């Protein structure tokens, strides 16, 4: 048992840190330091810089354009990106679709989509949830009827993040409504968002932003060669996708960044006549969060250490990473918002976007800290709610 990283691993971390420092465009860096949100063009620009270096598809093998990193290198890369902070690569492209294509795709599908996904030439979104299929994902109804060498897709998806900026959507559809088990009649399709019959309607979330959408499919023609893996075996692909995302699941770097950010801003804010950073209650809150984060960090290293021995073993500790990771992410964004005090209340998003000669608004970081708090209430909902995760652990791990 040894906590120390090897000299090569430490050098790797320095290399990543140096690369971000030297290559993250100044305007994006400034945006993130001020707490502004990034937009699609920022993410595309940054991901292409990473891809040129061969790092964008950080979890993929070399053969398919990834760097072929070890689990520890992947963890270090993510943590450096998150704490710097730099924009994170598009997760739909890199951590969701990529590994699915590599595992289940035909050579033709791999060659066509993987390089474009890594370079963010195609922006992907995920069409899984439906109005009647949230936690009970296998209850999905969107139907794909076979007609010659096409599927005709009809139905509705919901909570589709970034569908309004996406070029493609990977979708779960029902190809056999008569299957004895609902999991057995599902297929995994790649759908071009420009296909006639697709309508995207925005859903504004509680942070006031447009991330989410409803997507309607009305007689949408999808070529059969856009199906991944076998017909009616899409559930296997979905399970692989949902279980695949392990290294980044705890988002420890992001929680660390929120704590660092809070400490920084707490030096500027005041409480009881002195800087907030000197307030004992505030300091204790940070101490408690850092303690929990420390133990999650060790838990993550335990998972990585076991992964070294067996890359694809299902590790029950992954559930700890998800449950604690999201709790801490939410607690740290809550902390950052609370630092702002009354400045947490204003919604300046629109005003700050516009140039104006009126009295100055600000600080930007305060309104953005609240936005981040509001947005990340979703962290314990998306990808399966924490309550569903607890159901899974109690049955699968505890045998209840």
């Amino acid at each position, binding site marked *: 048992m040894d906590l120390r990283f090897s000299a090569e691993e430490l050098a790797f971390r320095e290399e990543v840190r140096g690369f971000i420092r030297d290559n993250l465009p100044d305007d994006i860096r400034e945006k993130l330091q001020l707490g502004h949100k990034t937009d699609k063009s920022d993410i595309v620009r940054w991901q292409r810089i990473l891809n040129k270096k061969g790092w964008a598809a950080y979890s993929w093998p070399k053969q398919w354009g990834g760097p072929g990193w070890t689990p520890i290198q992947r963890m270090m890369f993510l943590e450096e990106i998150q704490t710097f902070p730099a924009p994170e690569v598009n997760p739909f492209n890199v951590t969701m679709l990529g590994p699915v294509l590599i595992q289940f795709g035909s050579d033709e599908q791999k060659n066509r989509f993987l390089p474009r996904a890594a370079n963010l030439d195609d922006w992907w979104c995920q069409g899984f949830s439906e109005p009647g299929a949230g936690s009970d994902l296998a209850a999905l109804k969107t139907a794909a009827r076979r007609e010659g060498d096409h599927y005709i897709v009809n139905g509705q998806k919901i909570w589709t993040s970034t569908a309004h900026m996406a070029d493609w959507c990977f979708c779960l559809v029902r190809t056999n409504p008569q299957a004895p088990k609902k999991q057995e009649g599902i297929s995994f399709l790649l759908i071009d968002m420009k296909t006639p019959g697709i309508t995207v309607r925005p859903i504004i979330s509680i942070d006031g932003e447009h991330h989410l959408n409803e997507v309607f499919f009305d007689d949408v023609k999808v070529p059969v060669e856009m199906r991944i893996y076998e017909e009616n075996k899409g559930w296997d692909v979905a399970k692989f996708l949902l279980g695949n995302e392990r290294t980044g699941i705890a988002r420890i770097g992001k929680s660390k960044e929120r704590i660092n950010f809070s400490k920084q801003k707490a030096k500027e804010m005041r409480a009881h006549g002195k800087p907030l950073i000197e307030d004992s209650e505030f300091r204790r809150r940070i101490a408690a969060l850092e*303690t929990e984060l420390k*133990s999650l960090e060790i*838990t993550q290293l335990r998972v990585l250490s076991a992964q070294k021995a067996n890359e694809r073993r299902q590790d029950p500790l992954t559930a700890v990473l998800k449950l*604690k990771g999201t709790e801490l992410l939410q607690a740290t964004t809550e902390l950052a918002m609370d630092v702002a005090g009354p400045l947490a209340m204003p919604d300046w998003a629109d005003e700050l976007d516009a140039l104006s000669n009126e009295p100055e608004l600000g600080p930007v970081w305060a309104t953005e800290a609240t936005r981040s708090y509001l947005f990340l209430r979703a962290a314990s909902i998306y990808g399966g709610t924490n*309550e569903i995760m607890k159901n899974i*652990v*109690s*049955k699968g791990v505890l045998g*209840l």
Partner: protein
Amino acid sequence: MDFDLTEEQRLLRESVDRLLADTYTFEKRKAYLAEPEGWSRALWSQYAELGLLGLPFAEEQGGFGGGGIETMLVMQGLGRVLALEPYLTSVVLSGTALRLAGNAALQSELLPQIAQGKLTIAFAHGERQARYDLSDVLTTAKRKGGGWVIDGAKSVVTHGDSAGKLIVSARTGGERDDPKGIALFIVDANANGVARRAYRLRDGMGAAEITLAGVEVGRDALLSEAGAAYPVIKRVAEAGIAATAAEAVGAMETMQKMTLEYLKTRQQFGRPIGENQALQHRATEMFVALEQGRSLAMLAAMMVDEPDAAERQRNFAMVKAGVGQAARFVSQNAVQLHGGIGMTEEYAVGHYFRRCMVIEHSFGDTGYHLSRLAEQVA
């Protein structure tokens, strides 16, 4: 970075588990508790035969040169069965004090005796006014002839009732709370002027309030240079935190196991109570707390020999606070999920609960360490 055990460490764990599985059923434990000292001298000899009592000592002192991981494995095993023997006080605390204080003559005299199971030594440091402050020592040691005279009182000295010798902290200089001016002495537990009032802690372990009135010791009783023992005392407390973190993890494992077993077998409303989602989720939260606690116990085991004192201090504060919270959560819910039977003396879970409560109040509780961490936020 890896979390793998070496072959020797795996064998150590197996032999500890094998010994304890045979000797520490809950019924047998009750019999040990009923012995005058509250633990088993016969079992202590078996620990010695297995090499456990000299595990962290150097080979020339009758030991096996084990480190933090080895101690973790033993303590975790002891925690699983709620062992009563003075391993923590004699081998871990007093052993660490002797090893680090550096009096070679005392090391070669005493460490082999500990390793052979012939002698137990209690670490008599805490005082009633001190709460958890390690530098709050009022007991004094004054020079007399070539030796020292010790006066003062020590409080809640675990296994101080049964120990053959005591390691006593006393001031050779400085005022209350001054880290400078503290010394450690080895004192015969039956020396003139030593009075021990024995009692049991809430978890059944023996302890004593000890007064020292004009206790005379020779110059060779000093563990290290007079007045310079505070860094050693801190290291002893860190070793205690690491060891009890592992012990608490062992205790949590057993509580978790018992609780799951109960949830699966206890029938109410015509079905196992474990089919209720409220209880399933609670059990999952216990699992999360246990694993987070285990991570910290591992961190502690790897930190005991960290050379950077500030780094050690910060990490041990986190370990103690984090394991304390985890153990409190797991033990309170283990009792809760058992319902009425969990409240009874005759059922094991309440004994584990009380051991965790005692551990939490050793070496600084959760609040104590969190506020220390809070002071250092930068």
